[in-house]
């Protein structure tokens, strides 16, 4: 069960990047960097272990009497949840196709066109399931003061850190947080195997 958080975190990072990446001025460069970044993150994430309480809240939806066969399979279903979320990103925004495709053999305009598909679809999925807002409402580059008793998980202080709060500094990144979430419930596959990221499609 507790394995679900890192997976979810990766899905979110990907989602947020995709959602807020500004594709208008120079899509190709940004997108290339983004894609590489995401691929790395995904790889790291796959080998990361973590434990966090929140995993429980997300996976307790399976405690339903009607699916007794799957209630004990918590590890499998936590993974199933993340995979299902990625599957939604693939279905709507072709995210897995984007990551699995060979980016080195295509020119920037082809990658830019593909990036629009990913942006349109994935941002729709993210907006459907999560409400996202900046951690800090200030403008990036402006001076801010982090007061005593600040939430250390919401602010990361870097540079020359000494003395006591308030800490005065420059807002480098405004941060993102989820203000509310409405994640889908996931039905685990019967055999205990993981759900597909995308089924093979056959036109009959």
């Amino acid at each position, binding site marked *: 069960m507790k394995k679900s958080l890192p997976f979810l975190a990766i899905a979110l990072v990907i989602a947020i990047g995709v959602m807020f990446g500004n594709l208008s001025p120079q899509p190709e460069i940004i997108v290339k960097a983004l894609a590489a970044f995401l691929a790395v993150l995904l790889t790291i994430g796959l080998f990361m272990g973590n434990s966090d309480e929140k995993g429980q809240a997300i996976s307790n939806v399976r405690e339903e009497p009607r*699916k007794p066969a799957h209630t004990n399979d918590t590890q499998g279903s936590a993974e*199933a949840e993340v995979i*299902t979320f990625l599957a*939604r990103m693939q279905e709507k925004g072709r995210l897995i196709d984007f990551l699995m495709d060979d980016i080195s053999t295509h020119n920037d305009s082809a990658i830019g066109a*593909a990036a629009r598909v990913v942006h*349109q679809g994935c941002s729709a999925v993210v907006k459907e399931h999560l409400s996202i807002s900046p951690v800090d409402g200030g403008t990036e580059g402006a001076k801010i003061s982090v007061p005593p008793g600040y939430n250390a998980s919401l602010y990361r202080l870097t540079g020359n850190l000494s003395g006591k709060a308030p800490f005065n500094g420059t807002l480098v990144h405004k941060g993102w947080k989820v203000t509310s979430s409405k994640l889908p*419930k996931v*039905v685990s596959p019967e055999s205990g195997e993981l*759900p597909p990221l995308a089924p093979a*499609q056959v036109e009959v």
Partner: protein
Amino acid sequence: MKKTFALGIDLGTSNSAIAWAELENRESPEILEIPQTLGVSSLGTREIFPSATYIPHEAEFPANLAQPEWCEGKCLALRGQFAREHGSMVPDRLITSAKSWLSNPHVDPRSSVLPWQSELPTEQKLSAFETTRGYLEHLRQSFQNSHDATDIASGEIVVTVPASFDEVARNLTADAAEAAGLENVVLLEEPLAAFYAWTAQAGSEWRNQVKQGDIVLVCDVGGGTADFSLLLISEQDGTLEIERISVGEHLLLGGDNMDLALAYTLQSKLASEGTKIDTWQMRSLVQSCGAAKVTLFSRDDLDETPISIPSRGSSLFAKTISTKLDRATLNSVVLDGFFSITNPGELPKEGKTGLHEFGLPYASDPVVSKHLARFLQRSLANVRASVALSQMVPKPPGDLLHPTAVLFNGGAFKAEAVRKRVIELLASWNHGVAPVELQGFQPDLAVARGAAVYARNRVTGRGLRIKAGTSRSYYLGLESSMPAIPGFIPPLKGVCVVPQGMEEGTEHVLEGREFGLVTGQEAEFRFFSSEVRSGDRPGTIVENAEEELEETASLKVELPPLEGFSLGDMIPVRLHAVVTALGNLELWMHHTRSEKRWQLSFNVRTE
């Protein structure tokens, strides 16, 4: 049972929603989340429930397909978002627009014919009635899912229907609700619901936006349908009163048509550049055009929006096609194509109905402006037909009634440019005098909220009530008694049995006209209606019913063998028309010399 809460159900042609409100809370009603299948293994909730039903193949999905809890894995059909998305690729198994099939005069809504022209065996198909029942059941279960301690019977439930629905379609909707476990629902016309939602949202402020003598056009263009109504504002003892004075015809024309038109334009542009796209890509293009339309209309700083069309295979970089929607194309397709500034005399071209396949009667003319002109022309005819209405509404020059204010509703009006264009159009028909756009437009979910507001007002007896009554007048067909002449069929007369505007909780006896019913035999009457004859009273004769009225249904009644009469005896009866407290029309035959009575049932006319 004492009512303890108010529930509003927007049973939409393309999307449905539910809102609920506590009785003592004057806040705007709360929209409920509706559980629905989002993917094969994921179940989520959304405020919007697409009115789509998918009938899966037995081998199509794994046995533990994600379904709402109440299904317990046994629902045969899928409803909601996944049904619509997946079904668009398997159209033979997808049912959409069931609501329009309920009011289709050519196909019996209780026969299992949907998906229309599908090759599925009949036993797997569903009727429009059953499809509608399924949606209402899903919505009821959704409510109970989030309020499991609440008895649904203690709710005042309002279900919205198009203003264009006649009594047959309304009765079918009410019956479907009952079959879905929602008893005694009250039906409300969608444009009225939009107006209730507007008054609730604007608070007491709404009274400052309208004044006595105003004629408000409720202009509702949703995904697949357009619906118009006119409301007259009058003042009685210092308070504003509102009366609905005209409703439009059922019009299958909406925002989806606009997205399709944009997609076809871009498709032919691509084709001229040598790029062909397949049907799957076309679907994606239609969706992207919808999104690009919203972006361009809401961002004045953009001149164009790029659109990428992926191919279906996994190779995203190599096979994605690029195109773009520019503002000139958008304006020429949407504004000038659907909302062009037409002359007031330009009316929609009628389709060649004789050659059409039976199916949904889609509007054959896509220009909304012309349909609006036709509606305002018919509205004027309706107002002139009654002395009372004529006194309240001054006669305008020309053939159209001119609204003085407009309340917009529906997704098509999210774009300010489209709202502006409609105001401009109405001004051009009225010597440049523009109607006021009522402020506080809520494009989504207004109808569900308004239905809940109306439900709350009904129970508490407080708040606004729009005077509406029956939107049409109704007639029984009577054979003319004329000497037989070879080669001449005497015209069928219509006798008015229900006047327009007959209010809930009232009844009429058709005086001076007795019918003879024979025991043990079924009697059948032809039944007609009109939207434009506000002056007719019960008993008014229309000389040529087939020409001047619309045939709605047939009415049937069968008298059981009766004590004191032998089989085949003629029994004298009189017709009573009742509009129940819930707003349903019932017709009864009363024995003139006893308390006995029999109800006439509506049967859909099928040709």
